[in-house]
């Protein structure tokens, strides 16, 4: 899909793009049917960064979306499989919103979906009061593996850094770390740093830009970012910077791709090294992947998709684009939404505590 790059960041087009994605996605997204909560998070957070979430979505719509998200919560009423509680990525596995939440062995939560649900709820103005914290924290304990890594759900052998990050962000948002063995998790992250300074999804694999932010954001959320024994920081920074050509590419000698401006850019930001990024070159690349119909593609010739559109937006936020909200890179939530969430929580706490 070719469209001549513009020098402008197309704010209004992006708002319309995320609104469209939120209301209906084409069937090419069928392969992402089990990750609708994550697609939703991109839309909600996208509109939030653009400062339009509460203007383009009415309060009733936001409440409706919040209810849909809560309907994806997998509680003990649905299944008693250890490690299966939290949020499922959508209603694909079984009845969710109706009364018939009968036991279903194959309806299990997924850490990525639980993370996406919590972030979406925070952004939509919820206070997480209906989240079953205890069940989620107990599930985390089942999902952490002997090597410190996490699998996304109880039937999975997919143990990698992405899910360590989801676990850490979940614990942070729930203010409860009792489900995570931090020392083991830090050990896993350390084992994932490769000989070239980058992080691999799992020990031994090739360094991958997709998990740079997972690694360092997890360390930050666990309070180990300044722990010299946890990882080689300067090697990680150097690796991240070496992956910039115009934009960033995810692995050595691969093509630049919009999403790594978040995955690697946010990793560098967490490590306090974002000032070393060549912003001019990155901006030119991202303007080339920006589409006239709104959104961003993976590369300059690609159609836009929800993930790359959101990632492109976060990059512009981190570069300080006027009109975009500031992003907290380690949580991937706007500072504004996060502070409002904490304020709602403390006022709820005041109301409920006896004086």
């Amino acid at each position, binding site marked *: 899909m070719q469209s001549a790059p513009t020098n402008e960041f197309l704010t209004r087009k992006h708002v319309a793009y995320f609104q469209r994605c939120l209301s209906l996605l084409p069937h090419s997204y069928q392969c992402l049917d089990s990750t609708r909560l994550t697609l939703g998070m991109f839309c909600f957070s996208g509109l939030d960064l653009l400062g339009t979430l509460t203007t383009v979505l009415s309060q009733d719509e936001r409440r409706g979306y919040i209810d849909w998200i809560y309907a994806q919560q997998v509680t003990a009423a649905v299944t008693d499989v250890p490690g299966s509680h939290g949020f499922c990525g959508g209603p694909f596995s079984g009845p969710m919103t109706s009364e018939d939440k009968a036991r279903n062995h194959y309806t299990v939560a997924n850490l990525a979906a639980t993370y996406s649900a919590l972030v979406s709820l925070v952004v939509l103005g919820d206070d997480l009061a209906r989240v079953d914290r205890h069940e989620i924290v107990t599930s985390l304990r089942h999902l952490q593996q002997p090597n410190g890594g996490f699998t996304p759900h109880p039937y999975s052998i997919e143990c990698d850094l992405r899910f360590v990050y989801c676990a850490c962000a979940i614990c942070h948002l729930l203010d409860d770390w009792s489900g995570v063995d931090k020392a083991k998790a830090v050990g896993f992250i350390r084992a994932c740093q490769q000989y070239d300074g980058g992080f691999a999804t799992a020990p031994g694999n090739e*360094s991958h830009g997709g998990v740079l932010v997972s690694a360092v954001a997890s360390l930050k959320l666990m309070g180990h970012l300044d722990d010299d024994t946890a990882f080689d920081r300067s090697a990680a920074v150097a690796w991240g910077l070496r992956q910039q050509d115009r934009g960033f590419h995810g692995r050595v*000698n691969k093509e630049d791709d919009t999403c790594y401006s978040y995955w690697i850019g946010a990793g560098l930001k967490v490590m306090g090294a974002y000032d070393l990024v060549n912003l001019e070159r990155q901006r030119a690349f991202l303007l080339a992947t920006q589409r006239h119909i709104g959104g961003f593609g993976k590369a300059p010739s690609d159609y836009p998709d929800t993930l790359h559109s959101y990632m492109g937006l976060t990059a512009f936020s981190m570069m300080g684009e006027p009109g975009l909200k500031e992003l907290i890179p380690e949580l991937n939530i706007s500072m504004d939404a996060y502070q409002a969430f904490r304020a709602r929580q403390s006022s709820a706490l005041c109301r409920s505590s006896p004086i």
Partner: protein
Amino acid sequence: MVKLEDSYVPLSQLPEWSDVTPIPQDDGPHPVAPIAYTQEYAEAMDYLRAVMKARELSSRALELTEEIVWLNAGHYTAWAYRLDILKHLNVDLYSELDFLSEFAEVNPKTYQLWHHRQEIVKLLNDPSREHDFIAKLLATDSKNFHAWSYRQWVVTQFNQWDGELPYVAQLIDEDVRNNSAWNQRYFVLTRGSTQDLDRDTLRREIDYCLEKMALAPNNECPFAYCRGLLKKFGTHDDWLLIRAQLRALGGVANAGDVAAARSQYAWGLLLDTEEHLIREATEEEGLTARRAEVRRVRTNFRV
């Protein structure tokens, strides 16, 4: 809903499914990011929900999961359900490998495919088909991240380290910029970071890097690989060797002229080398030596 295939026969018209009451998707009044499913997928999912809920471990359910994963390769609960059915029915798991080989050609980057295959190979306890399977996919995409990760599991699980280094060397010969192959080289030599390198092997690897650096000075791989080896296993002499060789790569004796090679990677490694030698000197010789080194490096780099 979009109807894609004219040949599509709805499950509801098939007698073998007549006893099942499909469960439609329950999306509520405010669906988040709904997808315009194809008619085929929407109906197959309605039946899948019904048999999954009943936990029916049957051959018709097995076929249904196959249809589902063709339509949505990332459907992780369908894959988990499929594995349970396979175990229960005691079917020939080699035919499952055949299905997965066919499936991988269309969906080589689906996480679930690779983990499902890993489960099947574990059950069979037979990796004899895996090297050909992986090699075929790497021949199509030599940087397929999933294929390499799976290969590491096979090599480690079944102790198949022999032959891995020549294979990796061949891939690097074919494309010296294939970082996946370079990573596998590190993985093989350190046995997945569990073993040290002996002196001869380390020197051989440094020579190997130098040869590849000269071949393509703007290729990050050999520089990153060499730095990694030196940081972990290098002695003082090894660092001195690489410094001398990097200067030679620039074609000159003065470090400052490495720029002539126009390689940011050579520059980067040389800087790290100098820094390492300074740090080493600080630890071994004390402050005076450090000052001398700093002076020398500054002069060389004309900082």
